[in-house]
């Protein structure tokens, strides 16, 4: 009889298994940030014809994820071991898929989900691609799931899966609208991502054949037993793979080409999150998998310096607002790598603080760029001007993140840069400190150019200035509101700089002593 299939028995069986690891309810929240957006994406696909329903689903899911992540961060930070582990499928660590949230992952989850919610509100307010394409919401949610998955995975192969999830979603978002320029740069983005994925899967195969595992906790125990040449090889290979994602010095060329062509909201979320996922992966793998002598400190320092310099020089040479900001991302990736490359507590804590600061501030800048484009009808600095009078609100919203990213005191950029420079000085890495300070100065020039071009002066192009009559184009309230939230978050970062930095320091302590991570992951289900 078919009716004999008894679901209640299944339920009982599952519940009995779940009682074994007695770690409280917090572990349940670990996979939440991946599963919920995926389920929401599914419902969103089914509701493809109803944009209102899609908006409710998307915002509801991401808000729920945000709340869950905040709870997770507070709880994880409270715990003595500072880590929450969930074993997918109920299989113990080396067999199953470990999902791990330590302090660093929790910080990243909170910041990224806040950005995802704000940018979604911005996109809804924009009434552009989000409204025209039914695919926007489902794909955006898949992107959210991919980003979260790459933060929480404790398994190198699933990091690959998470990257792919993120990439496939980003292909669609990048080319939404299908304009020729988008498709062209989308092609190069797809090609470079496929090359990176090929490197990644090759690296995985090599790591697996050398160690017999892809679980990061187990790798952390087994990689140090390999010959040192092999260790260095793996370390370099993974830096290349994640360096392409992050936009490190010789591997950044695809980024300023592809990001500016995407819809504004999409560029904002890419700029805020995707490169930082690459940086996160570099930090995670370098610190967790490799022992001291296989870490590439010197190489990363050189790469960091070159990344900072080329990024900012590229930004100076551009006229188009989105392109300036895109080049500028690269420059700041250099700062994060600089912090990591010191491999000291202060350096890593500084890098973590810098990542958080940069995600918030960069997203804010791109959102403001979207508002400028909406208001002025163009994002070329040579065609716009005088917005400090025509749109004082936009000017204010731009001023805060711009001053912050330059590193002017009381803003979060100052705290972040000060932490990094201080860490650099304390280990006497003078060249990189000098580069970091010089690049800050150039950053000020870049931001000054945007300010002078967009907000001061007058509009020179007569054809465009016709469209610039006051009251002609109004920036929708939701766009302003969501940008204001992100800007407020960047201000909150400096108001709470003390506790934030302490948290970053605790996260850095966790990272520098991976034994706890290994023990928690491998021992969690024993």
């Amino acid at each position: 009889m078919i009716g004999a299939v008894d679901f209640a028995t299944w339920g009982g069986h599952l519940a009995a298994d779940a009682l074994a690891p007695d770690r409280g309810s917090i572990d349940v929240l670990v996979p939440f940030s991946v599963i919920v957006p995926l389920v929401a994406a599914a419902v969103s696909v089914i509701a493809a014809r109803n944009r209102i329903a899609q908006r409710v689903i998307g915002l509801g899911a991401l808000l729920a994820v945000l709340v869950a992540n905040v709870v997770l961060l507070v709880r994880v930070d409270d715990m003595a071991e500072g880590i929450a582990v969930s074993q997918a499928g109920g299989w113990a660590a080396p067999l199953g898929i470990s999902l791990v949230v330590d302090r660093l992952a929790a910080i990243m989850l909170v910041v990224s989900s806040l950005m995802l919610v704000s940018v979604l509100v911005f996109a809804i307010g924009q009434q552009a691609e989000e409204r025209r394409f039914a695919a926007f919401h489902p794909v955006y949610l898949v992107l959210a799931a991919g980003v979260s998955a790459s933060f929480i995975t404790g398994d190198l192969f699933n990091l690959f899966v998470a990257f792919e999830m993120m990439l496939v979603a980003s292909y669609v978002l990048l080319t939404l609208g299908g304009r020729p320029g988008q498709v062209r740069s989308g092609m190069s983005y797809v090609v470079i991502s496929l090359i990176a994925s090929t490197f990644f899967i090759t690296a995985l195969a090599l790591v697996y054949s050398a160690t017999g595992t892809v679980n990061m906790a187990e790798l952390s125990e087994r990689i140090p037993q390999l010959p040192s040449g092999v260790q260095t090889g793996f370390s370099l290979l993974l830096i290349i793979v994640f360096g392409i994602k992050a936009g490190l010095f010789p591997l950044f060329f695809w980024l300023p080409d592809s990001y500016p062509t995407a819809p504004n909201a999409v560029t904002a979320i890419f700029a805020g999150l995707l490169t930082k996922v690459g940086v996160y992966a570099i930090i995670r793998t370098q610190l967790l998998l490799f022992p001291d002598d296989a870490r590439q400190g010197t190489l990363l320092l050189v790469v960091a310096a070159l990344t900072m310099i080329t990024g900012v020089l590229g930004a100076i040479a551009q006229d188009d607002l989105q392109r300036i900001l895109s080049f500028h991302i690269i420059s700041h990736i250099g700062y994060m790598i600089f912090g990591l490359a010191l491999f000291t507590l202060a350096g890593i804590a500084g890098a973590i603080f810098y990542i958080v600061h940069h995600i918030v501030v960069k997203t804010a800048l791109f959102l403001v760029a979207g508002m400028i484009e909406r208001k002025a009808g163009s994002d070329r600095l040579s065609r716009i001007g005088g917005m400090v009078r025509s749109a004082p609100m936009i000017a204010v919203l731009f001023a805060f993140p711009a001053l912050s990213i330059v590193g002017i005191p009381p803003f979060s950029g100052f705290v972040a840069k000060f932490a990094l420079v201080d860490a650099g000085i304390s280990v006497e890495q003078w060249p990189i400190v000098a580069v970091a300070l010089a690049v800050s100065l150039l950053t000020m020039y870049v931001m000054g150019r945007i300010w002078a071009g967009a907000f001061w002066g007058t509009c020179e192009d007569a054809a465009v200035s016709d469209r610039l009559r006051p009251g002609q184009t109004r920036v929708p309230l939701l766009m302003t509101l969501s940008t204001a939230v992100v800007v407020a978050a960047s201000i909150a970062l400096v108001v709470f700089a003390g506790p934030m930095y302490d948290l970053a320091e605790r996260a850095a302590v966790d990272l520098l002593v991976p034994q706890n991570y290994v023990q928690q992951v491998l021992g969690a289900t024993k």
Partner: protein
Amino acid sequence: MSTQAPTSGPQRLVILDQSIKVLYQSILVLSLYFLFAGHNLPGGGFVGGLTAGAAVSLRYVSGGAMAVRTAFRLPSHIVLGLGLLVSAGTALIPVVLGGAVLEHGDREVGLPIFGDVKFVSALAFDIGVYLVVVGLVLMAFAAFGDDLGPIESTAPPEPPDGTGREAS
């Protein structure tokens, strides 16, 4: 299910049409076999879905995009969405029941004709994957299939993922 598609121009082949009437259903049955056999034998949701996708593409070869559109009653995005919902749901349901994410159970059941059959809850995940693959194949044909013949009037350019069509 009728395979009789609207006329698609002069190049329709009678032999192809007639063989597809037989093949279409057989391949779909085979794909279902793969789907259910997949737990312990070669097969599974992905392979089954691809096999079903092959059946759908046979319909495309014979009847063009219209024949694909009439192949399933449900719109393709619903198939895709349901599939994703089912497979993502199987990750969530064990959590609600108090287990780990994606945890699965199994149960042997005596059925009248089939004998003892082992049911695994992982099958639900596989069914979801099957639907996702089929939905994706349907969508791909809906989005890119129109240039085969004069079956449909030419539509305005669509986004590459094809969901834009569903919204309009």
